[in-house]
């Protein structure tokens, strides 16, 4: 005698892309849990093959509407590594500014529009606006600054086209950069106020025993450069990514699952891993924000990711201003000579490390491209998190359980469209098998 209860939730809302959660319970026991990604595979790696490497920055920007800069930056750095292109200090600085713009825009989208409704028990940001108008306006103002940066360096905010191998197609004028600095200067305090508001909300807690993986740079908060380090001792260069991590296919998902190659266990990438692994490189204002929330970072807790994002918005503001105030001379015209080569790069997308490996032939055409996005790296950890959460999901009414599962998934800000190669929630409750008497 088996009673089976199925709960259909529909595609999980407020995440990027399409997927489903399938949960089978027998009594209190989780017998099966699968995060199913049915977003169609997109074959970017295959369609890049045979194309000129200089097409990659624009092509890669098309992978994601939210984090195009991350794809552009990992790709362009991989090409430059393959060809031995020296990066002008001015270009290096402007790339940091560009990436900061994407962090600001992506993090604010997640904080106010995707995550905040969960903390307030509301359906969407439109309902938040009716009760907390000042905060929503503040988030919109800050997000617009991120947009401004993207347009200034990328030419446009959606599928930006400003990046080229060795630099940018157009370098902003000093006047444009000064005007941007004037807009950013008062915004940091706004970002601090917004984080204080989030700290006042009933944000849940869900500590995890998980390995944290992020980039780490000798002297700065990681974005475009650094070694891949973990809370459990991994310390490798970008070129050694595949020695430390592996991707495995699972039947229920068009996204690959990544895991620690040596231990076979999941790991967590993203803002929590970055903040906890790079406390010594936070700007004074970001460090102060972290100190005010220190108990939320005592152990890795995906539910605290909204705070990590808020800290990183402050960090990104400070990083952007540091670049703008340095007033570096305009970079020299990029000198990139196509050649046969193999290149690897890891940069910090808003959602976590993004690995690109590629090979070009003597003409500079792409022979091989491999992309490992942050969401596919986090997917096994999301499943582990949900497995631990299942008894709580079971103990509460179905609607609440569904909201709890969805909110837990949203903590990872999964970018399902990017990861395919995400969510209907189905819960099956089976009676435990009868014991023979």
């Amino acid at each position: 005698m088996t009673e089976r209860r199925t709960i259909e939730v529909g595609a999980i809302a407020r995440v990027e892309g399409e997927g489903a959660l399938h949960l089978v319970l027998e009594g209190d026991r989780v017998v099966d849990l699968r995060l199913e990604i049915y977003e169609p595979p997109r074959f970017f790696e295959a369609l890049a093959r045979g194309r000129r490497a200089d097409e990659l920055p624009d092509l890669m920007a098309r992978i994601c509407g939210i984090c195009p800069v991350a794809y552009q930056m990992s790709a362009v750095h991989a090409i430059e590594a393959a060809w031995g292109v020296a990066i002008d200090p001015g270009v290096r600085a402007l790339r940091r500014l560009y990436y900061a713009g994407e962090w600001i825009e992506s993090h604010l989208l997640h904080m106010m529009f995707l995550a905040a409704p969960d903390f307030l028990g509301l359906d969407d940001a439109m309902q938040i606006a009716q009760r907390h108008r000042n905060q929503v306006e503040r988030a919109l103002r800050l997000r617009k600054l991120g947009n401004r940066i993207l347009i200034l360096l990328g030419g446009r905010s959606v599928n930006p086209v400003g990046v080229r191998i060795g630099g940018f197609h157009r370098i902003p004028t000093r006047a444009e950069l000064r005007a941007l600095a004037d807009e950013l200067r008062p915004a940091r305090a706004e970002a601090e106020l917004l984080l204080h508001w989030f700290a006042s909300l009933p944000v849940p807690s869900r500590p995890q025993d998980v390995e944290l993986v992020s980039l780490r740079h000798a002297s700065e908060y990681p974005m475009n450069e650094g070694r891949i380090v973990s809370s459990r001792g991994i310390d490798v260069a970008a070129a050694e990514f595949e020695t430390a991590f592996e991707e495995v296919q699972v039947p229920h998902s068009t996204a690959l699952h990544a895991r620690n190659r040596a231990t076979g266990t999941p790991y967590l990438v993203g803002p929590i891993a970055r903040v906890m692994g790079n406390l010594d490189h936070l700007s004074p204002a970001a460090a102060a924000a972290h100190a005010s929330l220190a108990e939320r970072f005592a152990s890795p807790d995906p539910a605290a990711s909204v705070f990590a994002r808020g800290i990183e918005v402050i960090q990104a503001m400070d990083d952007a201003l540091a670049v703008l105030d340095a007033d570096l001379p305009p970079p020299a015209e990029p000198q990139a000579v196509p050649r046969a080569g193999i290149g690897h790069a890891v940069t910090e997308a808003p959602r976590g490390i993004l690995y690109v490996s590629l090979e070009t032939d003597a003409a500079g055409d792409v022979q091989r491209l491999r992309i490992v996005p942050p969401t596919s790296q986090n997917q096994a950890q999301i499943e582990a998190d949900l497995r631990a959460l299942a008894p709580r999901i079971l103990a509460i009414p179905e609607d609440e359980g569904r909201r709890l599962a969805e909110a837990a998934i949203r903590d990872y800000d999964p970018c399902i469209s990017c990861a395919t190669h995400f969510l209907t929630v189905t819960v099956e409750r089976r009676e435990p098998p009868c014991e023979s008497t």
Partner: protein
Amino acid sequence: MRVHVIGIGTAHADDAVGLAVADLLAASVLPEDVVVLRCARPLPDLLDALDGADAAVLVDAARTGGAPGSIHRLRPGDLARLRSPSSHGLGVAQALALAVALGRAPARVELVAIEAGQMQSDVLSPAVAASIGAAADAALQIAREMQDGGGEAARDA
């Protein structure tokens, strides 16, 4: 009455048609107090584009199942029936609802929706490209009706 005609879209396939209509209108002779703007993303760009407007005409690509290039005149309330193309659920309907909640929505909003054909290539479908003139005229006609005191109230929709 200041009317903003706002072309919404990206440079991608038939999604670019709203921008193409805005570009054509911006290059033409416009009635007094009609301002043409371009907007890439409903959030946050549309909110900014609505600031200062007494009324707005939005021009955007849409998919309702009709023939590519066909033009629909819609009110905000009609948007609920259309599937949002934004995977985050942050499309035009949501941006307008947020604008109302924030007190930033003009009294009147209407939409000119152009049926999209394909979303694959980087150029407009011929049928969609052929509708740009008619869509621009439709947007201008609605803007004039709004200035003459006609048009539909957005908040009631």
